[in-house]
């Protein structure tokens, strides 16, 4: 449940957390180059990037890498332990190959992670920019709604929504995405509030530029930093959320595997077959930690003041 925590009452601190600095553009070197250099100096972030790339590749190439059909049940091989011939990581409760299942499960878990992140970013960006740019009533209404959703613990919302729509890949993606956009929206809104007073935005407006044009040409590009950070952290968040929904019984339907629902099944069996619970849990942790590290690194890299931090 990684969350971007910022002080909502203090746009300054938000801007710093989000890596925003309106003056960044005035630097000589391209800010993106600087950021990239900074990012790779952050060793944990670089490690996270490598690990997550490996995980993504293994998910993409699951059909090539998986030794077996992940859905093939061999009831006689129930709970075969790891290191058995034909089952490098053992077999699950109906004798499916754990390794193949983990590889394919990665596809679903990461797909949910990325798709939910997209939903989060789109909703969060639109709400944040619109709210911050227009201000007034629009802002008040949108922000009160945002605050209302923020007042529920996410798990509560996830549960209620999941019981509402029933489990499918699409519904789970939407549920996760729709319960996690609020932080981003607030960050962007507060940033936009200050940005819209900036000279070049005022100038643009004076020259007759339309609102959508101003938002997309000036405000959005300036928001890319915090969006990237939020996007990365939200992938981590979504992978974790998927496992929570599965754990609470509203997850992806069998026989398809996600790391979350593998874990959900395994909790009843880990006395007999600890590996069934161990591997998906480790993979979730690894994935979530990797994306969290990347997000951290991005935040530092995009925050101009980070350089001063030792």
């Amino acid at each position, binding site marked *: 449940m*990684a969350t971007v925590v910022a002080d909502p009452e203090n746009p300054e601190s938000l801007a710093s957390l989000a890596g925003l600095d309106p003056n960044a553009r005035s630097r000589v070197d391209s800010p993106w180059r600087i950021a990239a250099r900074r990012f790779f100096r952050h060793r944990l972030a670089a490690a996270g990037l490598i690990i997550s790339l490996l995980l993504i590749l293994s998910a993409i190439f699951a059909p090539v890498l998986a030794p077996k059909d992940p859905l093939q049940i061999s009831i006689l091989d129930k709970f075969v332990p790891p290191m058995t011939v034909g089952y490098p990581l053992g077999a699950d409760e109906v004798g499916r190959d754990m390794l193949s299942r983990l590889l394919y499960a990665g596809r679903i878990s990461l797909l949910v992670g990325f798709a939910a992140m997209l939903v989060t970013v789109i909703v969060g960006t639109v709400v944040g920019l619109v709210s911050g740019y227009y201000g007034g009533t629009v802002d008040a209404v949108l922000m009160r709604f945002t605050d209302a959703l923020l007042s529920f*613990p996410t798990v*509560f919302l996830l549960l*209620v929504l999941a019981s*509402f729509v029933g489990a499918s890949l699409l519904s789970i993606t939407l549920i996760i995405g729709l319960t996690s956009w609020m932080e981003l929206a607030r960050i962007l809104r507060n940033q936009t509030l200050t940005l819209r007073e900036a000279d070049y935005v005022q100038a643009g407006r004076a020259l007759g530029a339309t609102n959508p044009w101003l938002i997309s040409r000036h405000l959005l590009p300036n928001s890319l930093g915090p969006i990237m950070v939020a996007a990365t952290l939200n992938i981590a968040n979504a992978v*974790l959320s998927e*496992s929570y929904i599965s*754990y609470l019984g509203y997850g992806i339907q069998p026989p398809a595997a996600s790391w979350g629902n593998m874990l959900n099944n395994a*909790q009843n069996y880990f006395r007999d077959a600890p590996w069934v619970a161990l591997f998906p849990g480790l993979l979730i942790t690894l994935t979530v930690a990797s994306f969290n590290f990347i997000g951290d690194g991005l935040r530092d890299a995009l925050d101009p003041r980070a350089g001063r931090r030792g």
Partner: protein
Amino acid sequence: MTAYLFRRLAQSAVLLVLITAIAFGLMRLAPGGPEAVYTLSPTIRAEDIARIRASFGLDQPIPVQYVKWVGGVLRGDWGRSYRDSRPVLEVIGGRIPATLELAGTALVFAVVVGVAIGVLGAIRPHSAFDYLSTIGAMVALSVPTFWFGLMVIYVFAEKLHWIPSGGRETLGAPFSLADRLNHLVAPALVLGLVLVAGWSRYTRAAMLETVNQDYVRTARAKGIAERPVIWGHAFRNAVAPLVTLAGLQIPLLFGGALVTESVFTWPGMGRLFVDSLGYRDYPVMMGVLVATAILVLLGNLLADLLIVFVDPRIRLR
């Protein structure tokens, strides 16, 4: 100050109305209903199901139900549980102490450990300790809580028999503090661990920020010992954002408590919510959501007020 307080409270009230409307609508529109437990009864007939639904008021349009519910709440009547027909406030009131005990212990644990790690990390940035603690905190943040809880139960309860596998106390035994602590320690640590990362990261960042400020340098230059410099000058000024963090962590804390309570069969509000969801006990679900939302809003307000006391530079508008 008073005006500020008043405005914040008014805002919170508006929020609560929004929150309850959203929650009420979502729940009532969801498929299934509290009668499902009964509809499978072999001797039940259509008219019985209708009578059950009517006795819960479910035969009326959702907006009417909502207005009635709000009217009841304003009179202090939060309705009665569908399951055991006790007043919702009583049902929830019975669970709040357990949740506060768990969440409070977890928060204290997280603050102490997190702040310690953060300060130490800031004193020696990029040291081995700094790296290891950063990694550790991040991994703790990334572990699925329920999985970690299950592993803890498996190792420490089932294999080592150090702790009980769940619950809040040993049944049938007289009250004993040691027994209560023994039950509390594992779930509180599991829940607290998720929060440690937040605390250590922000403490570290805030400390790094202040350590390099002029007044800290001045203090150092004046020859004040390192320890008072760190705690007296630097940390004191880093506290403000941390207080805000405490307020903002409340929803995370309650969400985590829901999962932790489920894993450790801890009889708190989180598990009450999960149970009530399974039975579609709408009045209790609403009660838990509203109680949580109130705690969250109050927590945020309290955090904002506290800042004034820890950081005299801040004035509330």
